[in-house]
């Protein structure tokens, strides 16, 4: 009884997590590809989930369409294109790089090096500052020593 319960606990969350379609794939690689594709296509009915995570009727039709296109040996690019042509760029969770999205994709590549340069500059400045301080704290220059002597007289 306990064993059965444990087994049930093992199985059930998986069945809750995602809608189940009975698509069969000959190779594991194909199944992985299918899973990857449906994870990056938006459900146009519910908009804030992927077609992988949606139980909507239309999402099911879309998963079916992905499966069909895979069976027709369509490339990932062609499959994504099929959706973009109909529903627009927003249907993809990862927008394609083109003339309108290069800034979106490229900005991190620009900002990260810029940040590193800024950080290095800051550190260098702090270091030279620290050196200055150590000089003034430690040994006095000749003129300073002279002034000190005069003051302490």
């Amino acid at each position, binding site marked *: 009884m306990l064993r059965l319960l444990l087994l049930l606990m093992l199985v059930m969350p998986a069945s809750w997590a995602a809608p189940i379609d009975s698509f069969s794939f000959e190779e594991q690689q194909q199944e992985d590809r299918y899973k990857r594709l449906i994870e990056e296509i938006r459900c*146009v*009915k519910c*908009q804030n989930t992927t077609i992988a995570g949606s139980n909507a*009727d*239309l999402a099911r*039709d879309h998963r079916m*369409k992905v499966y069909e296109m895979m069976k027709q040996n369509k490339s990932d690019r062609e499959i994504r294109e099929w959706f*973009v*042509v*109909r*529903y*627009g760029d*927003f249907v993809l969770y990862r927008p394609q790089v083109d003339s309108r999205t290069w800034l979106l994709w490229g900005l991190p590549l620009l900002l990260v090096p810029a940040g590193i340069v800024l950080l290095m500059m800051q550190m260098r400045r702090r270091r030279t500052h620290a050196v200055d301080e150590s000089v003034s704290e430690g040994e006095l220059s000749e003129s300073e020593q002279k002034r000190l002597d005069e003051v302490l007289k």
Partner: protein
Amino acid sequence: MATRSRAILPIFLVALLFILLYTGLYLNPRHESDDSPMIGKSAPEFDLPDLLRAGERFSRADLNGEVSLVNVWATWCPSCRAEHDVLMRLAARGEVPIYSINWKDREESGGSREAAIQWLDILGNPYNKTGDDGDNVAGLEWAVTGAPETFLIDTEGRICNRLTGPLNDVAMPNPENRQEVQNNVGNILERVRKMRESDGKCLTKGEV
């Protein structure tokens, strides 16, 4: 001077961020599906069995040569029921042919082919032709995201407008002036008339 500008910079950035977030609060987070990439393009190829007349078809070829409306509906869709009266009124005017795609009317969606036939029988049939798209074949080509949905088609079979939701509360959005007009039947007909005046072509932005 240098220290002063350094003190202002963070305040400026925070203010900018605040403005950004504040505007974001009032933006519609939902993607406006009326701005479909299908608009301005030729209506997709499709070929459906006629719902009412056995052996006949409703296909892309039916949409050539005149300004028309294509309405997507289903019996499981309450807004379609609300919209039906508007369609009947529109059809009674006899100014624009209305075609329809009976979309996903199958048991798994909560409808059926028989229910669809009965619907038109009891409530009246405003459509010149109705295609039976129970398996969402044409629906995927037309990029239908839900019912009801209405397309305005020009004489060359091009999609001029796409309207998601019932015709009751929103009129066909006018691309030059996206105003929502209550008198939707009149608005649609006015648009059809304007299209006829310009050779039956779409009145959309720019060249289309």
